[in-house]
């Protein structure tokens, strides 16, 4: 059964722990649902397939960088194919709490080859919008400590920094991640949102941006004029996916056509 155009919107909110991401997504979800847009939430380490095992493995701190990267990629792919695409096909709004960009940044900061990780994530769909909540590392530390009174091992980059000072490690690691995001912003066209402000102010800006996307969205669109020149928002790809029906149905997947891939600019 041929796939129709994916009519929904894929909206990504990126940012570090403490950037206010989850708060913003909750607020967005309420707002959208109140307005009659059905939504689906996806995020890192939430797949049915591997989330539990991934979490266990991370608690044990026993995974190598390559393995961790691929574990997350599996988690992502499971959500992409089982949640995101079906939801988009049905015209839902998919709210992604982080996306491939965090995963790529984390991998690159840990020494993984940028070209390799981009190739792995060439399976990802290009979002309709990416909002990057930029918050200064010092404020991130404050917010994280206020929430948990402890800094997360992985968010402090302790597996790669080997520092005895966790505070300093956190700051430095987050700076490196932000640098990667700045580099990606050029290529993928994020909307960088100042996350140092009150949640209300941030939400207002997000809604204004998303409003434009919701209004502009209907079927096949070639280009959006309100997006920076360096990016083209292209409409949904047509992919052939056999639906799960009765009996044995093949689950055929492959890569989206090159121009619809989120990382297409770099894959050869």
């Amino acid at each position, binding site marked *: 059964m041929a796939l129709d155009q994916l009519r929904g919107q894929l909206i990504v909110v990126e940012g570090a722990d403490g950037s206010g991401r989850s708060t913003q997504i909750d607020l967005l979800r309420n707002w959208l649902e109140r307005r009659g847009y059905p939504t689906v939430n996806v995020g890192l380490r939430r797949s*049915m*397939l*591997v989330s*539990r*095992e*991934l979490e266990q*493995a991370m608690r044990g701190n*026993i*995974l*190598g*960088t*390559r*393995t961790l*990267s*691929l*574990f997350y*990629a*599996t988690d992502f*792919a*499971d959500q*992409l*194919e*089982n949640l995101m695409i079906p939801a988009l096909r049905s015209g839902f709004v998919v709210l992604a709490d982080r996306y491939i960009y965090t995963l790529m940044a984390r991998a690159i900061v*840990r*020494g*993984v*080859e940028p070209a*390799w990780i981009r*190739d*792995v994530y*060439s*399976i990802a769909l290009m979002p309709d919008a990416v909002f990057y909540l930029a918050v200064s590392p010092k404020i991130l530390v404050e917010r994280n400590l206020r929430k948990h009174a402890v800094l997360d091992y992985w968010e402090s980059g302790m597996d790669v920094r080997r520092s005895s000072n966790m505070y300093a490690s956190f700051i430095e690691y987050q700076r490196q991640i932000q640098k990667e995001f700045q580099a990606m912003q050029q290529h993928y066209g994020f909307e960088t949102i100042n996350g140092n402000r009150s949640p209300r102010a941030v939400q207002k800006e997000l809604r204004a941006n998303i409003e434009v996307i919701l209004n502009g969205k209907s079927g096949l669109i070639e280009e959006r004029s309100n997006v920076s020149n360096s990016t083209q928002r292209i409409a949904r790809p047509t992919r052939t996916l*056999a639906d799960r029906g009765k*009996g*044995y*149905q*093949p*689950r*055929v*997947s*492959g*890569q989206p056509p090159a121009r619809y891939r989120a990382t297409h600019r770099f894959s050869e």
Partner: protein
Amino acid sequence: MTNTPDESTIAGKLVAVEGLDGSGKSTQVYLIKRWLELDGYKVFFTEWNSSATVRKATRKGKKRQLLTPTTFSLIHSTDFADRYERQILPLLNAGYIVLADRYIFTAFARDAVRGCDRGWIRKLYSFARKPDLTFYFDVPLKTALARILDGRTRVKYHEAGMDMGYSKDPYQSFRIFQGKICSEYRRMVHEYDFTKIDATEAPDVQQAKVREILETKIDLPRYRWQGPVYPQQNQ
């Protein structure tokens, strides 16, 4: 993390063994392992799908049929990466002969048959060194099928490619699926310079050939344990 181009020199040697289920390759690789161990060589054996960390997820995914071609591919690549980073590569660096029962070529074959882009799969596994020697145990499809179906009353779901919908009959599905894998392998013989072994010959005949080739291609004395011969390693 170092970029690991295949060409960089490393102390150990990587020997991979490929072939269809029922080709007899596992028997052969076991014999190689025993020979090298008993003669006092530093050898490590690894097999497909054996990472303790990932295995649970793979098993769950298969059991509950949660896997798509992409996630099937990625979950196996995660398993492989774990074994590669923590065992295969360090042991190669330490000057071992690493014997792999199935290697990246298994993924190339299986994932391609399931519909994954061939280019993407190869890029996915590009971090892995190419083996110094790859034995491909070549057997007519009929023979492989007979051996598998003789030994067991049931064929496993994914082994039969039941997720591909070729047939509702597992045995028919198995035939078709393994046939396609066979074609993929045949294409790779040249691409990756496999050493083909006629797997229809008697096992001891095959093993003699395998040992002869190994001795030619690898300077075995280098890989002896220094000092007294060690008993069989723990793995």
